């Protein structure tokens, strides 16, 4: 078991290093001078040289990569160009709304998706199953920004239930400001939750032990909640963890539409202003979140599944 943990953690470290390398390479190895691109065509050679020195771009690449990684590890990834602020404080000011938004989306997807998946799986091919498929597909197919605007129009402008845009801190404020984008985000993830959970539930439901439990007189409710779900949630957890990347992508658009001052809208601004250090840092952070979550998902799966936990000790 410890062996498995160590191996899995080792893989995660390699993934993270690779991620940092790619983010780094994107800026330093692409043809053309990033500083010139950043400062624009009218910058004088002196300005370019100064900026290059300030960003440390004149040092050897290995050195630069080293300090880039060190900066990330020590929590001080350097200075933003456009905002004239340390990147660390820039991000930490904005991380909470984004974090809450992603959680909100996840909660919506899980809370809405689980019953849909369960009832579809119990009666495959039934009316509920077809209805669910239609609903989740439509929810998935609708562009996030469009759905966001429609909901903002309906619940914000027409019904005045929720703010149209903007962010208020504090518990109630955050909930109110994040409900519309959270629902949109959750709906876009819904199809993944429902499909994955439904598929793995179908597989477990046709297992012979389910038949054996029916023979014991157990109710479908007990079989599903006490037995089938135990085996079926694991793949869903993994898939969800991997798809947090998808959610992070979603926040970029939604924070824009709903004017939430989060990391997503910061990324949007940074790209707009060619603030490469900020883009680089956010990219690595987002990737790191995905890598770490899938690591945790694998470990959780190992902890929950005795067959993984104890290794292949089948007699």
């Amino acid at each position, binding site marked *: 078991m410890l062996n498995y943990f160590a191996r899995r953690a080792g893989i995660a470290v390699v993934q993270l290093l690779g991620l940092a390398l790619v983010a780094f390479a994107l800026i330093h190895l692409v043809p053309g001078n990033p500083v010139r691109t950043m400062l624009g065509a009218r910058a004088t050679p002196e300005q370019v040289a100064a900026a290059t020195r300030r960003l440390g771009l004149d040092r050897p690449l290995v050195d630069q990569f080293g300090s880039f990684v060190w900066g990330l590890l020590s929590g001080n990834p350097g200075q933003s160009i456009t905002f004239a602020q340390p990147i660390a404080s820039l991000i930490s000011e904005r991380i909470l709304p984004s974090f809450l938004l992603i959680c909100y989306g996840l909660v919506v997807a899980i809370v809405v998706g689980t019953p849909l998946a369960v009832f579809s799986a119990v009666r495959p091919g039934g009316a509920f199953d077809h209805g669910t498929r239609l609903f989740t597909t439509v929810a998935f197919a609708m562009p996030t920004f469009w759905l966001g605007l429609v909901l903002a129009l309906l619940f914000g402008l027409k019904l005045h239930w929720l703010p149209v845009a903007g962010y208020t801190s504090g518990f109630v404020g955050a909930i109110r400001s994040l409900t519309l984008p959270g629902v949109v985000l959750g709906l876009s993830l819904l199809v993944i939750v429902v499909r994955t959970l439904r598929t793995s539930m179908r597989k477990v439901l046709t297992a012979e032990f389910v038949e054996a439990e029916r023979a014991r007189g157990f109710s479908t409710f007990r079989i599903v909640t006490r*037995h089938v779900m135990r085996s079926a949630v694991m793949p869903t957890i993994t898939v969800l963890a991997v798809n947090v990347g998808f959610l992070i992508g979603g926040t970029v658009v939604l924070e824009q539409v709903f004017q939430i001052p989060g990391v997503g809208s910061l990324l949007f601004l940074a790209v707009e202003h060619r603030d490469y250090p900020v883009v680089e840092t956010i990219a690595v952070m987002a990737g790191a979140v995905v890598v770490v979550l899938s690591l945790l998902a694998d470990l959780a799966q190992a902890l929950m*599944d005795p*067959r993984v936990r104890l290794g292949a000790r089948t*007699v």
Partner: protein
Amino acid sequence: MTVGDAPPLFCARQLRIAFAGASGPVEAVSGVSLEVRSGEVLGLVGESGSGKSLTCRSTIRLLPHRARLTADDLSFEGRDLLALSDRELRDHRARNVGMVFQDPFSCLDPTMRVGEQIAETLRVNAGMDKSAARQRALEMMELVDIGQPDRRYLAYPHELSGGMRQRVAIAIAVSCRPKLLVADEPTTALDVTTQAQILALLQRLRQETGMALLLVSHDFGVIAQMCDRVAVMYGGYVVESGPVTSVYRAPLHPYTRALLSAIPAIESAGKRVRRTGIPGQPPGIGEILTGCPFVPRCTLAQTACTTIDMKLQEVSPGHANACPVTTEAANASPVTAGDNGARSVPPAGLPGVNAAMDVHHAVPSADGAEHLMQP
């Protein structure tokens, strides 16, 4: 047994189970009639696909989703199983019938400790509280000969051997003291030594609790060792049924005879003789729509056989045969009819493992049975 007029424990009359096929429904069980009486052991033999499992599962109406079941009568202790509500059906499954499946590797929840699976059954079906259920589960594990129950209670299914898992499955099945235990090829997936142990365990549990046992096997030796009566199935029908001794000594139906001649005999030296299989293939379901399903493989087949009604006819007390040709012959000369040479009869009562060995010894040699199969 002094049963008197009490209804049989389980009774099926003209049980039919069909599946929707490409061109209309296809029958897998085509009119099976059988009874399990209180406390008796009924064996069900027959080739793969003859409908044994489906027949077994009809005792608790646990059939594949797409299966359609009809019957003139399907009852347990006189109660119509077809009229039960979902709730009543679950009660029936929980209280009256225990079921042991063929594959102990897949019939337990892989994510749950085996002891907890026994305890859960006791909590849900017998309404015990947590600690009582745990205590009783440990006792059950002891009852089915699982050593070190305290330790094994905490094991997951994959940590146990096949035999141990089957013991757990049996503990679950008998935990709520069912009146009928249905064991569908409970030893097929196990090695020979374990098979004998599991059969001995079933025998002991049955004697201790007095529950009835419906035991499926495609090994007549096992049936002879364990059962009071036997029903032989072929192509979705019961083709012959009767007391094990009678069916074994004087098999009537050509399929039963072929089946008995196919039992591997053990020579005096202890060497196994080559298995004489039955030539030909069993029918695919839906292949034969009228008459006797054994026609393509039967050496006695006549034109009339393709149109006969598959009805069991009693030849001697309790011994019934669905083949009119051999029934007629038997009625004509009752002493020698169907007597397939000398056979030793398993001792009355409950023959043990040794008796089964005797049975193997006594099976006529491959040559002796050959005449049945010759054209």
